[in-house]
C-alpha cells in the first residue's frame, strides 16, 4: 500500500493504465468494493504511523521541484515490454538504486548510503541509514556488506576467480573494517578511483547482500543437515551452486530474495508477464512525505522483438525504450494520438553509430602492415562522405565526425570530432599512393604489395540494419579511391572469435560506449587493455591475461595509451584525471585507431501522455546514464484522467 497522508490519495486510483483492455465491469465493482474497505484504513492515523515505520530514520528526501518536476500521486501500474524473459534483469538498470549513484548532472551522490567519505581514493567510509530495511522488513546493516565481502567475494567456492576486478588494485584486495552496524570502511594502499563509479554503473555490482536470507544457504552458517535437503530439492550440485542460484541480485530469478530496489519481482520464468511490486521499505520520499516509488506495480510483458514497435503503436506499453530504434519512429508516431502516448526522441550518447575498426593485430602480415599505417587509416577516413551517411541513416540529424565523446561531456573538444574527418577523396587518394598502393587492376581497384586486390572484408554482426546500410554506402565512397569493400555479416559469437584470433581484417560496430564521461569515470575503453575492442584484441588479451596470451603492444603511440590509463588508475586528483582524458582523446583523434562516421541517433522513448515526470528530452546511453536510470523512474506517476480533468 502506498504512503498516504491525505485522503485524496485513496480516491480512485487511475484504473491501471490507459490503453489496456478496459477492466471488465465485474472487476471495476470489485475494485470499488476493495477501495471502500481500504479507504478508512488508509486515512486513519494508525496507518500513517506505520508508514514512517517503514522508512529509515533519515530517508532520502527527493526535492522534485528543484529538479523541475512535479510532486506526484502514488498508485497505478505500468506495463513495459521485454523481448526475452532474461531481459527483466534490466529492472535494476531502469530503477537505478545504488549505494552511490549519479544524479542527472552526472555527479556522484549517496543514495542507499546516508553518506560516504572518500579519502584520497584510498579510504572509503560508508554510512548506512539507520532503520533502513530490506523488502522483507529485516534491517539492512553493515553486516550485509561484510557478508558480501568476506563470505561471498572472498569465498573460494562461491567466487572461484576471487573478488571482482574493480576491488583489486595491483592484484591486492582492500582491507575491510566493520566499524559498527552503520559504518564500514574499505582501505587500499594505492588509490582505487574506479570504486565509486563502478558502484554507480548501469549494472550494479551489488556489493551488499541480504545476509539474513542467504546465510541459510551458506556452508559457514548453516549445518550440513539443513542445507542438504535444500540442495536436493533444487536439483543442484552442492551448497555453492544453490547459493549462487538464489543469490540473483541482478538476474531477478528469485522472488524470495530481499531487495533494496523500488520494486521486487514476484514470479519466475517461464512467464508471459513478470510482475514487480513496490518495496514497502524503500528509502526515498518526496518533500510531501510520500514514499517513492509512485508506481505500485511494474509489469514486464514478453513479446517478440519484432512486435515491440507494433505493440507500442497499439498502446500496449505505458513506457518503452529498450528494443526500439530510429526505424520505428514513423510507426510509433502514427499511433500517438489514438492511443494516448508520446514518442520522446532522446539523442543517444555514443561515440559513433557506425565505426570501422582496422584490426591492428590481424594475423595476415600484409594487412597488418597496412592497418598499422596511419596514412592508410587516415585515407580511409577522408574517403567517407559523412554528410551523405548522416542524411541516409539519421535523417540528417546526426553529428558527423570521429568516434569520440559527445558534446555534452565536459571533456569534449570540437577537434576530437573533426580532425581528419572531412570528405576529401583527392587527399585520400594521394595518401594511398604515398603508402605505396599505386598499382591498380583493370577495374580500377588498387593492388596490395603481394598482388592481391585491395578488398577489405568488413565483418559485422549483422544485427543492425543501420550498420549494413551504412557499409553499403561506404563501399561506394571507397570505390572512388580504388578501395573495394565487402560486407560479411555473421553471428556475433563467430565474429568475436574471428576478431580475437586475428582472422578479421576490419570490423564494423558501434563506437564508444562511454561517450558522455566525466573525468572521474575510467578511460579504459580508450586504451588497448581489453580484448573486446576490435581495433586491438590481442594487445587487450595480453594485458587482461597479464602476459600469458596475446601480444604485447608494439606501437609507441598506442603504448602511450596504456601508460595514461595506468596513470589515471593511480591518481586521486580530478584535475590530473581530466588532463589524462584529454591526452587520450587527442591521441585517439590523431591516430584514427577507430574510424568513426556519424553519431547522435535518436532513441524513441514511448510513454503514455498521462505518465508524468518522464523527461521530454535527455541523453540516452548505457553508461553512464543507465538508459533511463539516472532520470529516476521511481518519480514517474499517473496524472489525472484526462476525462476527469476536463470536468
Amino acid at each position, binding site marked *: 500500500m502506498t504512503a498516504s497522508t491525505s485522503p485524496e490519495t485513496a480516491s480512485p486510483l487511475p484504473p491501471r493504465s490507459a490503453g489496456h*483492455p478496459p477492466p471488465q465491469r465485474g472487476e471495476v465493482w470489485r475494485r470499488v468494493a476493495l477501495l471502500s474497505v481500504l479507504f478508512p484504513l488508509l486515512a486513519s492515523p494508525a496507518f500513517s504511523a506505520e508508514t514512517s515505520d517503514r522508512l529509515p530514520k533519515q530517508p532520502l528526501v527527493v526535492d522534485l521541484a528543484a529538479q523541475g518536476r512535479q510532486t506526484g500521486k502514488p498508485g497505478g501500474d505500468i506495463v513495459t515490454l521485454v523481448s*526475452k524473459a532474461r531481459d527483466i534483469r534490466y529492472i535494476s538498470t531502469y530503477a537505478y538504486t545504488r549505494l552511490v549513484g549519479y544524479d542527472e548532472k552526472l555527479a556522484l551522490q549517496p543514495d542507499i548510503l546516508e553518506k560516504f567519505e572518500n579519502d584520497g581514493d584510498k579510504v572509503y567510509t560508508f554510512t548506512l541509514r539507520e532503520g533502513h530495511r530490506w523488502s522483507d522488513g529485516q534491517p539492512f546493516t553493515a553486516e550485509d556488506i561484510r557478508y558480501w565481502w568476506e563470505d561471498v567475494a572472498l569465498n573460494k567456492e562461491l567466487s572461484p576467480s576471487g573478488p571482482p576486478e574493480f576491488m583489486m588494485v595491483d592484484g591486492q584486495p582492500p582491507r575491510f573494517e566493520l566499524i559498527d552496524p552503520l559504518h564500514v570502511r574499505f582501505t587500499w594502499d594505492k588509490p582505487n578511483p574506479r570504486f565509486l563509479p563502478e558502484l554507480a554503473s548501469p549494472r550494479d555490482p551489488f556489493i551488499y547482500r541480504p545476509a539474513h536470507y542467504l546465510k541459510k544457504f551458506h556452508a559457514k552458517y548453516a549445518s550440513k543437515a539443513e542445507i542438504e535437503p535444500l540442495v536436493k530439492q533444487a*536439483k543442484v550440485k552442492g551448497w555453492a551452486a544453490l547459493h549462487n542460484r538464489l543469490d540473483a541480485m541482478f538476474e531477478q530469478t528469485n522472488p524470495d530474495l530481499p531487495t533494496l530496489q523500488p520494486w521486487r519481482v514476484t514470479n519466475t520464468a517461464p512467464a508471459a508477464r513478470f510482475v514487480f511490486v513496490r518495496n514497502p521499505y524503500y528509502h526515498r520520499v518526496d518533500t510531501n512525505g510520500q514514499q517513492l516509488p509512485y508506481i505500485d506495480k511494474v509489469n514486464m510483458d514478453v*513479446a*517478440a522483438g519484432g512486435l515491440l514497435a507494433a505493440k507500442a503503436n*497499439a498502446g*500496449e506499453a505505458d513506457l518503452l525504450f529498450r528494443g526500439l530504434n530510429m526505424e520505428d519512429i514513423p510507426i510509433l508516431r502514427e499511433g500517438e494520438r489514438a492511443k494516448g502516448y508520446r514518442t520522446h526522441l532522446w539523442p543517444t550518447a555514443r561515440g559513433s553509430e557506425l565505426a570501422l575498426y582496422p584490426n591492428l593485430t590481424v594475423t595476415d602480415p600484409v594487412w597488418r602492415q597496412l592497418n598499422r599505417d596511419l596514412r592508410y587509416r587516415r585515407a580511409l577516413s577522408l574517403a567517407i562522405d559523412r554528410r551523405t551517411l548522416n542524411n541516409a541513416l539519421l535523417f540528417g540529424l546526426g553529428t558527423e565526425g570521429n568516434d569520440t565523446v559527445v558534446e555534452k561531456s565536459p571533456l569534449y573538444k570540437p577537434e576530437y570530432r573533426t580532425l581528419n574527418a572531412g570528405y576529401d577523396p583527392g587527399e585520400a587518394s594521394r595518401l594511398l599512393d604515398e603508402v605505396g598502393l599505386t598499382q591498380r587492376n583493370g577495374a580500377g581497384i588498387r593492388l596490395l604489395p603481394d598482388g592481391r586486390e585491395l578488398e577489405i572484408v568488413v565483418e559485422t554482426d549483422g544485427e543492425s540494419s543501420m550498420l549494413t546500410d551504412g557499409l553499403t554506402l561506404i563501399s561506394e565512397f571507397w570505390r572512388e579511391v580504388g578501395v573495394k569493400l565487402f560486407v560479411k555479416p555473421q553471428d556475433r*559469437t563467430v565474429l568475436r572469435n574471428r576478431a580475437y584470433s586475428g582472422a578479421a581484417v576490419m570490423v564494423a560496430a558501434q563506437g564508444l560506449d562511454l561517450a558522455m564521461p566525466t573525468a572521474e569515470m575510467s578511460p579504459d575503453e580508450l586504451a588497448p587493455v581489453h580484448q*573486446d575492442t576490435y581495433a586491438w584484441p590481442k594487445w587487450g588479451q595480453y594485458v587482461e591475461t597479464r602476459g600469458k596470451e596475446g601480444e604485447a603492444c608494439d606501437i609507441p603511440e598506442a603504448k602511450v595509451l596504456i601508460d595514461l590509463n595506468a596513470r589515471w588508475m593511480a591518481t586521486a586528483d580530478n584535475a590530473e584525471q581530466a588532463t589524462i582524458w584529454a591526452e587520450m582523446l587527442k591521441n585517439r583523434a590523431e591516430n584514427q585507431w577507430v574510424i568513426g562516421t556519424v553519431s547522435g541517433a535518436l532513441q524513441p522513448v514511448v510513454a503514455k501522455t498521462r505518465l508524468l515526470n518522464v523527461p521530454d528530452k535527455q541523453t540516452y546511453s548505457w553508461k553512464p546514464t543507465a538508459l533511463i536510470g539516472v532520470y529516476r523512474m521511481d518519480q514517474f506517476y499517473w496524472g489525472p484522467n484526462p476525462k476527469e480533468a476536463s470536468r
Partner: protein
Amino acid sequence: MIRYLARRLLTMAVTLLIISALVFVIIKLPPGDFLTNQIAELRSQGEAASVAKAQFLMQQYGLDRPVWEQYLRWIGLWPNPEGAFNGLIQGNWGWSFEYDRPVREVVGDALWLTLVVNLAVVIFVHLVSIPIAIYSATRQYSIGDYVATFIGYIGLATPSFLLALVMLFYANRWFEVSIGGLYDSAYSGLPWTWDKIRSLLAHLVVPTLVIGLGGTAAMIRRMRANLLDELGKQYVVTARAKGLPPTRALLKYPFRMSLNPFIADIGNLLPHLISGSVLVSLVLSLPTVGPILLAALKSQDQFLAGFILMFVAMLTVIGMLISDLLLAWLDPRIRLGGDGR
C-alpha cells in the same frame, strides 16, 4: 501381431538413439557453447564477477568434458560427476542454462499451449477443406470449383508471416484484440477464468487462420484429386445404377477410400502439432515451444534444444506406428508385412 509390435518397438528405440546422437552433434556444431558465449558476452560488458559464476557452472554441467561424454551423460549412459546415471533414459530432461531451471519446468506450459494452437489448426483445416473438396470434386469444372481452387492457390502462395502481421494489425484496429500472445497479458499468471478463456479464443483466431490456410489449400487439392479418382471407378457407377441415393453413394465408399492417404499422414500429424507453427508463433509471439526452440538453438542452450528436438522425433516415431496400425485396421487391403502376420 505381438511379434510385429515388439520388432517395431525395438527399431523405434534404435532409431531414437541414432536421432539423439545426430541432434546432439548438430547442436554442438557451431563453435562454443552457451556458457563460453555467455562468458565472452559478460567479459565484453566488463562483468568480471559473473564470468566466474559462468565458469563455475561450466564445470558443474560438464561442458568442459569431451562431446561424446557430454552426449552419453545427457542420454544417461554415462555417470555424472557424482557417479550417478541421470539422463533422458532415466527421465531427467536436463537443465536449461538460459532459464536457469530444469527443462521440464521451461517447456511445461508451452507444450500444452502448443497443442491447443495446433489442434485448433487441425480441426479448422479439416472442417473447411473436406466440404469444399467434396463440393469441388462432385461439381468438377463448375464455377464454384474454379473459385475454390483459386482461393486455395492464394492460400498456398501467401507468405504466412506477412499475412499474420496484416491480420494482427486489423484484429487490433477493428476488434481491439491485443497484439501477439495467446491471451491478453493482463491475464498472465492468473487462474483460468471464463474471461481468460474468452481472451484465449479471441487470440486463437488469427494464428488458426494463418497457420491453417496453407494446409487447407493443400488438403482441398489432394482430397479433390483422390475423390475424383474414386468417383470414376466401376463400383461407384454400379452403386449409382442400382439406385443408391447420391449422398450415400458418395460418402459410404469413395469418400472413405479417399481418406486413406490422410490416415497414413497421422505419423506426420503428431510432430506437426508441436513443430508446425514455429514461424508464425515467432511472428505472433505465441508462448509455444517454437520460439523456445529457436531461442535455445540460437543461444546454444543445448539440453533444452536437444530435448525439444527429441520430443518431436519421438512423436514422429510414435505417430508412424499409430498410422501403420490404424491403416491395417481400417483398410483390409493392407496387410502387415511378410512374417509379421
